[in-house]
């Protein structure tokens, strides 16, 4: 085991897979000399060279489209979209092409492409560089969506994504990059998509959260324990599609209360899906309605006060948990 940051864990996963499989290549904007806008791929050009670490023009649609075509015909590309907002520039290749081609061709092709992207609010980067849009993609049959919060999960699940035979969207929250953790070193070790993780055991309320949120939920758990004596169980599904509902239901049957927290806008977000599934399958176990925590109904604004007003933090999780904890059946 080695101590490393989430950023290094993502890099390690890509490097291990590039070493392991000559069909893997990595492309994106400013990913070569600069190592990506977030420094994730720093040093990879030196090891793998410009054929496999492909610096691209600013052409999201072409980059993803080409990756999809290459994936159909023998390569296993990993693509980086600099900000999650810019997946909108590549919507057709992701949604119209990658997600559907296998289906439409009656299973004649596989599309083993991994689309990595990152984002998140809290940096005053303004409305066009701060959105969390995972629900756009969880709504598309044919795509898998992975969004881990922990460094070790980032490594193992990115490796799994690259080895997966399907198009996988791999979402990194910007706040996670400097987070440190113990990460394994066996290059053959690989994670499994669709398996959630209990990040903290607790008995009074379940918080289901992903992306950057689990770190805030863990903070909230400390506060709730000290100030309210509430024991929070924090569950990170790690993969949103496929979703490990089992681990969530098991927890809710124990705690009888559930809050779903994500940074994306609440209305129409993936939290709604989780809440619906929980009440469908564990209605009799619930002592309170499932509450959602998410961004308010606005684009992410620039000014720090405004941004803090719309984007959820640990306090919003605390408030929601208190609300369901004191509710009676």
């Amino acid at each position, binding site marked *: 085991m080695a101590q490393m940051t989430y950023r290094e864990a993502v890099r390690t996963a890509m490097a291990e897979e590039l070493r392991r499989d000559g069909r893997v290549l990595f492309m994106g904007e400013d990913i070569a000399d600069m190592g990506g806008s977030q420094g994730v791929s720093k040093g990879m050009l030196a090891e793998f060279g410009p054929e496999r670490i492909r610096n691209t023009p*600013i052409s999201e649609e072409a980059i993803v489209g080409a990756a999809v075509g290459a994936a159909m015909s023998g390569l296993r590309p990993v693509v980086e979209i600099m900000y999650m907002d810019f997946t909108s*520039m590549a919507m057709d290749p992701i949604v119209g092409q990658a997600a559907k081609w296998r289906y439409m061709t009656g299973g004649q092709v596989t599309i083993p492409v991994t689309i990595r992207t990152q984002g998140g609010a809290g940096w005053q980067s*303004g409305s*066009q560089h701060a959105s969390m849009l995972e629900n756009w993609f969880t709504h598309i049959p044919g795509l898998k969506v992975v969004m881990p919060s922990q460094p070790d999960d980032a490594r193992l699940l990115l490796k799994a994504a690259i080895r997966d035979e399907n198009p996988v969207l791999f979402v990194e929250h910007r706040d996670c990059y400097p987070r440190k953790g113990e990460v394994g070193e066996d290059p053959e070790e690989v994670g499994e998509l669709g398996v959630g993780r209990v990040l903290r055991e607790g008995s009074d309320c379940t918080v289901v959260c992903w992306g950057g949120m689990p770190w805030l939920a863990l903070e909230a758990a400390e506060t709730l324990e000290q100030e309210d004596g509430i024991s929070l169980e924090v569950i990170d599904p790690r993969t949103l599609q496929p979703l490990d509902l089992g681990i969530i239901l098991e927890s809710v049957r124990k705690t009888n209360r559930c809050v779903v927290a994500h940074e994306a806008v609440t209305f129409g977000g993936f939290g709604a899906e989780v809440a619906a599934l929980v009440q469908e399958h564990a209605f009799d176990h619930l002592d309170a309605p499932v509450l959602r925590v998410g961004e308010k109904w606005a684009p992410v604004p*620039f*000014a720090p*006060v405004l941004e803090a*007003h719309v984007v959820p933090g640990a306090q919003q999780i605390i408030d929601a948990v208190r609300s369901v904890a004191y509710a009676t059946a």
Partner: protein
Amino acid sequence: MAATPRARTTTKAAPTGGKASAKKATPTKRGSGKAPVDDHAKSASGRKSIDDTAGRAAAAAYGEQVSFARGKRPSDKLSKAELVQMYRTMVLARRFEELVIDQYREGNLPGFVHVAIGQEAIASGVGHALGDDDFIGSTHRAHAHIIARGSNVEHLMAEMMGRITGVCQGKGGSMHMADMSRNVVGANGVVGSGAPMMTGVALAQKELKTGNVAVAFYGDGASSQGNVHEGMNLAQIWQLPILFILENNRYAESTPTWQTVPVDDLTVRGAAFGMKTFAVDGNDVLAVYDTTAVAAEYARAGNGPVYIVAETKRLSGHYVGDAEVYRPKGEAKAARQTDPIPAFRAQLLERKVPERDLKAVEAEVEETMERAVEAALAADFPPAEDAMKHVYAEYPYPGPVLGL
């Protein structure tokens, strides 16, 4: 019946670049009158650029592209006072951005900040050549463009700091700054997306017969985005009054343009749309003024869009704080030799503009900017609930759910 390729000739003839107009710009041979191309990035990396001779040949054969020829220069008609104003715009933009950098370092100015230090001649030349009611759309590197349209620098600086007195009331910041009081549609955080949008602004000008033109600024990096190509194509088939102004600073973030653009000469891309095309030394403010003036007159007269490639240099990092590890040693320093501000200053002195006039402008700018920073720092932040304002035309907005 299936359409045959020949169907095209039976409709209105597809417009080709230039319509050999009796305009002031005269066709010249390709490659003349162009800014020198710098190759240092290539040699430093040891990798060769793609051979673009075929592209050049095709563009040369296209023939109707024009480079601006110095004949009767529109700028010859500028008074000394007007020339000094152009200088002031450049100095103001420079000083604004220098102070932005200072304030960023002091922690007073959050977010992502891209400065256009070194590119002020384009902003000023274009800004002054346009009419008061013409529209501009900019990029993530927008401050100079906006300042050159006469926006109030106090409100711009306040916006940079997220204050309520900001031109967007703190909603936009550097990357999304807009000022509709000056027909500045706005900066844009999404590379290339301004091009189709400004095409639409031009469509509105045409339909509403305003006589205004639209300008879409964009970068060499953006020139590879599909949205730019789609916008240019649409503008040409609809013959819209728009200028596509490509600021070729030869970098997109860390990426030198030669790595991502297969032609060295970006003017050849105008040929693909049969679009009137000019090349200009973007560090020569008067050349930019002349080119824009001719282009705007052409577009305003209903002749269709014009594409302008302005060569320039980025004298700072991509963003404030960029260590520029990717930039060959000495390149940035060498680029400073072509700084357009001292160059224009010298030119003005040569034209017998009294130095005291320039000094007076410099002192006034210094004061103006000092005041702008002070005012911005003293201004309030918006109330937090303002975050919910402006999401819709209605406020308060009753949604997203009703009936509760």
